[in-house]
């Protein structure tokens, strides 16, 4: 608990929170990190395998093979999410399934499935980016800021 948060609490509240905290199991951080490392690594290795497959058999270059590779990983995620398996893997794997492209695909698919009952426009369309939206908003915004800095530096002749 941060000190800032603590200040707002009354002494009784503080006392109770300390009392409760000693009785709550902590998230097993080391175990979670290990699992995330293994699963995240496994997904990345799978992606690498798919990329090499596209390069060897479909004559893609190392750069252009990226797109079909991502597409295949997304399709696998879509299927696993649709069959209701992905969330169970994720409960075990944690960040291991969230960080790779599979995590992003899962946010969109799960939201789309969930809100199917509210129709295709307001339900699926309106909610698909409910979880993925912030990633896109701040991803695009940070890309914009970075490119602005690069342009300014180039005009000044620094780069």
């Amino acid at each position: 608990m941060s000190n800032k948060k603590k200040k707002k609490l009354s002494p009784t509240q503080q006392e109770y929170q300390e009392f409760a905290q000693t009785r709550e199991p902590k998230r097993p951080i080391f175990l979670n990190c290990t699992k995330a490392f293994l699963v995240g690594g496994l997904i990345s290795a799978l992606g690498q395998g798919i990329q090499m497959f596209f390069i060897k058999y479909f004559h893609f270059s190392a750069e252009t093979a990226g797109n079909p590779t991502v597409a295949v990983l997304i399709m696998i995620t879509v299927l696993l999410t649709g069959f209701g398996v992905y969330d169970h893997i994720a409960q075990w794997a944690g960040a291991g399934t969230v960080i790779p492209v599979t995590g992003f695909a899962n946010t969109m698919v799960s939201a789309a499935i969930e809100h199917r009952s509210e129709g295709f426009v307001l339900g699926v369309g309106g909610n698909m980016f409910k979880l993925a939206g912030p990633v896109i908003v701040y991803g695009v915004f940070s890309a914009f800021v970075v490119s602005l800095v690069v342009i300014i530096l180039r005009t000044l002749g620094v780069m």
Partner: protein
Amino acid sequence: MLQGHQTWIFDSKPIIIASAAVGGPFEAQGALAEDFDLLHGDIWLGQDSFEKAEKKLQEQACETALKKAGMKKEDIQFLLGGDLINQIVPSNFAARTLATPYLGLYGACSTSMEGLALGSVLVDSGFAKNALVCVSSHNAAAEKQYRYPTEYGSQKPPTAQWTVTGSGAALISAQGNGPRVTGATIGRVIDMGLSDPFNLGAAMAPAAVDTIEAHFRDLNRDPTYYDIIATGDLGRIGHRIAGDLLKKHGMGIPDEIFTDCGIMIYRKDQPIVLAGGSGCACAAVTTFGHFLNQMCKGELHKILIIATGALLSPMSYQQKESIPSIAHAVSIEL
């Protein structure tokens, strides 16, 4: 009749002449499966939305309770219903089907005992001959509203709880046979400043403790008066905190009689429930199913149920508000 600050004593001791518990697939694998009147293998119940499925659960619980009592819906003067979904839609829609004069309640997961207490007030005061109480919760509908889409892969901490899919109904009557509602303690809203929606047990424990203490203070009773004292859905962590807090306040309840519906309802080999069950249906199906069955068999004589509710909304959580909690206690005796 009011006794003490916040406890009602029902002089006529309204009778629970029938009760019903309906559950979902996960509850069917749970520890109390045999106490359900109806169990569903499909979380959708053949409906096209989770909300409709929850409405169906309530309709079935009401129908079953009426059938067990040998009554028609016209014999019921008032229906008291509640659930967790925005604007308590499943309850409202189930009440539309029943077409009985209806009072909608919201007390989060404490609604079951709020309803049972108010229903008993109606019957005890003579404002109703028969009152039906029905509450429900649905795992996927609650997840959808309060947290993330059901299929979204986020890792839940060990303090998180699993919302029970189910509905419990109790028919309270002035005449008949069955366990009797003898008293109720209405709780205060307690806020200890906790704000983690994945740790509701710890947020609700002080509310449960406050109501339990008020109950025994108002009635000047000792905890050993009861065969079972069960909290609604504190889960393993919240229940332990509540037990320790009561001991700290000098009012320890013996471990053999102090339990929690959220711990009882699932088996230990269902690790996905993490800290235990939650939701309106958690206290409702455990009380109206399991405990009342045990009372009818004569295995229990006096029970006290303290249903606990976390009064948060997804918006209040996003606006960084803490989680106020409430607990209502109802005593049922043979």
